């Protein structure tokens, strides 16, 4: 459940980004088959169905006919999906009929049938000396990514880890995305940084890529080139070398910056290799590559497999020795003892309150524990003991016993009529917080107050005139 929801979130954030682009930009993005395929993969299942059905239609199709494709009680869902596709500029509507954006249609057909110019999918390197194994790639990617996470958690001064200090581009992205704040002396992590740490790695990579896009936009580079390159990277195959000759200068610069994040490996200026961090972005967890099995066994050591056992008495046993995972657990678990392959502790009121004070929500803690739960725990439903999840939520609610709203309080209405009029007015505007008709008192929000004050003045004016 957790994996699907964080993916949906990122599909929506990149969808929002695409929606915010002006039309000409979108047309340019659609002119690359790789971009069209990547965007297609990001859509929801219903969206994909709609696009596929309309892909080879020669003329526009009427909205009513699309309505007939779904059962009557799901009509509204279909309409909202069509609306979403229209916002992304994939559908063009005229006089009650819709058709696919012609550029998108042509390039998606090319992408699926292998026609057209497929250099946008990445030009493979044709030399013989490209020998970097998938294990090396996985090791490199994990090292770099963990170095960044370590830096965020504040454990960058590990005596035995001699990693090069983070480059300026990585730091500036962390700063711009508000995951960390601070200057050249030292950076401290923010609340959103804590939340970032608890997400799964696919969501983390998406966040970083989106922030990179925004940074490039701020520096006025051509966003379309950057987007096209990103979509190209996302569709590359793990383990193959790709040539850099077909790339433009700004794309090569991007390559250098993405290398610092562990998304790309480049041992020679002429070629680069994508790592599993970036190729698994659009494949929603289940990869059909035979190469993936080798990669999975490497990954077992450092991240994606479950390793946490949570008992009904709130005790935690985490089978890991990775300092990063231990540091992340330390955010909300009171760790008690450490062994060679195991760390034990408990989820206590104090530890959870500490995490809540840092801005982490109870849902994030629960999602993190669920997605990293040991395979033995994952066999049960629900995965985590209900007692513990309920208790974490109760501790969160404890902090929110008071629900404050900045407001204005009105009293001393001369006549019931005035009160009723203002009351109705406030209700229509939706700014009423509370009202008592016997005592002739009410409370409205801060924003509502300005408008109501005007109306009150008008009323007083008209009352004076009547008298």
């Amino acid at each position: 459940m957790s994996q699907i929801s964080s993916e949906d979130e990122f599909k929506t954030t990149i969808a929002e980004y695409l929606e915010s682009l002006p039309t000409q930009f979108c047309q340019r993005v659609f002119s690359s088959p790789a971009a069209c395929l990547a965007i297609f993969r990001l859509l929801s299942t219903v969206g994909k169905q709609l696009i596929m059905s309309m892909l080879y239609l020669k003329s526009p199709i009427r909205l009513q006919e699309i309505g007939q494709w779904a059962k009557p009680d799901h009509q509204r869902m279909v309409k909202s999906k069509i609306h979403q596709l229209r916002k992304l500029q994939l559908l063009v509507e005229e006089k009650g009929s819709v058709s696919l954006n012609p550029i998108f249609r042509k390039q998606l057909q090319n992408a699926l049938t292998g026609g057209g110019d497929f250099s946008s999918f990445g030009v493979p390197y044709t030399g013989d000396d490209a020998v970097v194994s998938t294990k090396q790639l996985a090791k490199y990617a994990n090292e770099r990514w963990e170095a960044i996470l370590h830096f965020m958690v504040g454990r960058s001064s590990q005596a035995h880890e001699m990693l090069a200090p983070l480059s300026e581009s990585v730091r500036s992205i962390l700063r711009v995305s508000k995951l960390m704040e601070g200057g050249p002396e030292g950076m401290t992590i923010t609340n959103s940084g804590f939340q970032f740490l608890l997400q799964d790695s696919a969501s983390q990579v998406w966040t970083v890529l989106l922030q990179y896009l925004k940074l490039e936009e701020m520096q006025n580079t051509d966003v379309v080139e950057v987007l096209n390159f990103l979509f190209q990277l996302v569709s590359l195959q793990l383990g193959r070398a790709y040539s850099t000759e077909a790339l433009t200068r700004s794309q090569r610069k991007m390559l250098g910056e993405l290398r610092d994040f562990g998304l790309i490996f480049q041992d020679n200026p002429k070629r680069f290799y994508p790592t599993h961090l970036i190729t698994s972005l659009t494949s929603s967890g289940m990869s059909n590559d035979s190469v993936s099995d080798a990669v999975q066994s490497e990954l077992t050591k450092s991240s994606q497999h479950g390793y946490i056992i949570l008992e009904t008495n709130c005790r935690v046993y985490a089978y890991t020795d990775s300092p990063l995972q231990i540091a992340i657990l330390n955010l909300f678990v009171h760790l008690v003892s450490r062994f060679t392959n195991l760390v034990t502790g408990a989820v206590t009121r104090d530890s959870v309150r500490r995490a809540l004070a840092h801005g982490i929500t109870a849902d994030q803690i629960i999602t993190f524990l669920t997605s990293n739960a040991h395979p033995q725990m994952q066999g049960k439903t629900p995965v985590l003991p209900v007692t513990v999840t309920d208790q974490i939520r109760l501790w969160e609610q404890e902090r929110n016993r008071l629900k404050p709203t900045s407001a204005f309080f009105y009293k001393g209405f001369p006549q019931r009529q005035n009160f009723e009029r203002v009351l109705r007015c406030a209700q229509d505007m939706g700014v009423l917080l509370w009202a008592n008709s016997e005592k002739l008192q009410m409370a409205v929000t801060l924003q509502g107050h300005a408008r109501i004050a005007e109306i009150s003045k008008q009323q007083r004016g008209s009352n004076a005139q009547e008298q």
Partner: protein
Amino acid sequence: MVKAIKGTFIECDAAAREVLLRLNAEEKFIIEDLDKFHLFINSNYLTRIQTALDELMDNNTYKSQ
């Protein structure tokens, strides 16, 4: 003449409201007591009463360590 007072509108449960009424006996911050679940208070005191409530919860919790 209608009087408009600026402040903070609070929605809470009955127990928290009783605690706030008791705190009010020492430092007056309640502008108006609305009903069983709502209060209208002076905005400057908001953080202080939140900390006071927090402390109260802390003192009344069993800590095994």
